C-alpha cells in the first residue's frame, strides 16, 4: 500500500516540477481566462444588477473554455517523448499513475484558476454570497472538468487539432455548468444552494472513481 502511495507521490512531484519549469502553457491560458472575463463588463456595462446576474455564469463559462485549452498538457509532452509508453509498461496500475497526473493538472491549473476567479469577482464587486457560491462550485467543479477531460485527451491525443477534444468535452461538461450556475443564482437570491452542491459533489465522486479507469483504458487503446 505504502508503495502505491510512494509511486503516486513520485509521479505527482515529477509532473509538478515539469509544469513549474515550463510555465508558458498554464500562464497563457490563465491570461486567456482573465482577458475573457474582462470582455464581459466591456460588452455588458457595469451596472451592478447586470454584473451580479451575468458575471458569475460568465466566469464559469470562461473557466470551462480555459480548462479546455490546458487539458492537452496532461499527456501531450509524455506522448511526444514516449514516456507514456513507459508508464503503461510499468508494473504499477496505470489507473493510479494516471490519477496522479490528473491531480497534478488540477493543482497547477485548477487552483490558480479558482484564486483568479475569486479576485476577479472582488474586482467586479460581486456580492459576498455570490463569491462564496462561486468558490464552492469552482472547487467542486474544476476537478470534474480535469477528470472528464483527461479521458477525452487520452482518446484524442496525437490526432489532428484540439478542436475535436473541445467537441467531445463540452457536451459532457454541461451538467457541471448547469448545476454550478443554478447554485450561484440561488445564492444570489438568498436561497439555499445545498441541493446543487450535493449534486456536484456526487458527480465529483462518480468521476473520481470512474474517470481514471476510463483514462487508463483509453490510453491502452491509443497505444495498442
Amino acid at each position, binding site marked *: 500500500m505504502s508503495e502505491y502511495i510512494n509511486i503516486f507521490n513520485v509521479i505527482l512531484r515529477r509532473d509538478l516540477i515539469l509544469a513549474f519549469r515550463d510555465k508558458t502553457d498554464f500562464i497563457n491560458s490563465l491570461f486567456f481566462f482573465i482577458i475573457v472575463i474582462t470582455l464581459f463588463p466591456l460588452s455588458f456595462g457595469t451596472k451592478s444588477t447586470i454584473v451580479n446576474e451575468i458575471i458569475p455564469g460568465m466566469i464559469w463559462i470562461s473557466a470551462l473554455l480555459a480548462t479546455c485549452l490546458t487539458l492537452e498538457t496532461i499527456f501531450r509532452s509524455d506522448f511526444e517523448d514516449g514516456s507514456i509508453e513507459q508508464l503503461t509498461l510499468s508494473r504499477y496500475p496505470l489507473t493510479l499513475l494516471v490519477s496522479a497526473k490528473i491531480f497534478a493538472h488540477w493543482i497547477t491549473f485548477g487552483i490558480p484558476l479558482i484564486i483568479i476567479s475569486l479576485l476577479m469577482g472582488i474586482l467586479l464587486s460581486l456580492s459576498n454570497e455570490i463569491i462564496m457560491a462561486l468558490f464552492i462550485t469552482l472547487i467542486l467543479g474544476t476537478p470534474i472538468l480535469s477528470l472528464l477531460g483527461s*479521458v477525452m485527451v487520452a*482518446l484524442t491525443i496525437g490526432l489532428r487539432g484540439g478542436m475535436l477534444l473541445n467537441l467531445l468535452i463540452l457536451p*459532457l461538461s454541461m451538467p457541471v455548468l*448547469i448545476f454550478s450556475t443554478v447554485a450561484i443564482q440561488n445564492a444570489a437570491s438568498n436561497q439555499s444552494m445545498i441541493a446543487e452542491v450535493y449534486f456536484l459533489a456526487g458527480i465529483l465522486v462518480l468521476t473520481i472513481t470512474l474517470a481514471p479507469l476510463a483514462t487508463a483504458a483509453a490510453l491502452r*487503446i491509443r497505444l495498442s
Partner: protein
Amino acid sequence: MYKWIHQFGSPKYFYDISLCLSKWVTIVCIVCFISGLYGGLVLAPADYQQGDSFRIIYVHVPAAWMSLFIYIVLAASGAISLIWHIKISDIIARVSAPIGASYTFLALSTGAIWGKPMWGTYWVWDARLTSELILLFLYLGYMALQSAFDDKRIAARAGAVLALIGIINIPIIHYSVEWWSTLHQGPTITKLDKPSIHFTMLIPLILMVIAFKTFYITTVLIKTRSEILKYECNSSWVKKILGN
C-alpha cells in the same frame, strides 16, 4: 450459447444470416409504414384541441424513441467489442451512429415544425428539447472521433469508450437540464396535459414505431454487409460472391 455468439460474430455467417433476415425485415417495414401512415393520416380522428397538427407525432415520437435506442445500441455494442473483441459489433456501432444522428435531427426538426403552430415558436428551452439537442452533440462528437482515426479497429474501440461515458452521462444531463428548466421557467406552459390516447390514434403510432425500428434494422444490415465486403475483400468467400 457462447458458441452461438461467436458464430454470429463471424463475418461470413453474419453476412448469410443478414441476407435472408433483411428480406423479411424490409417487408415488415414497408407494410407497417404504409398501414401506419394511412391509419395516422387518414383514419385517426383529428385531435379536439390541436386539430390535424397532432398527426406529426407519427413521425416525431418514433424518431425521438429511436434516437435514444440507437445510442443504447452504440454503448452496448461498444461494451461487446471492448470485452469480447467481436468485429461485427464494431461495424454495427460505426454504421449506427449516422443513422442515430439523423433520427435525432428528425425528432428535433419535426418538433420545431409542430411547435410553431402549437406553441407559437420553433424552439423552447424546455428540458426535453435541450437534452435531445445535447444528444445530437454527443452523436456528432462520436462521429467526429470515428473519422479522426485511420485505423478502423482503434477507432471502434475509442468510440466504444466514448459511448460508454456518454451513456453514463445521459441521465445526468437529462436530470440537470430538467432541474435547470424547472427552476428557470417555473411551471412551463409548454407541457401538454396528457389525456390517455385513444386507441384509433395509438395503433397507427405503434405501427409507425415498428416501421421506424425495422427501417433502422434494414439500413444497418445493408451498411454492415457492405462494410463486411470491404473489410474481408481478400477472403475467398467474398471473391466467390463478387465473382458471381
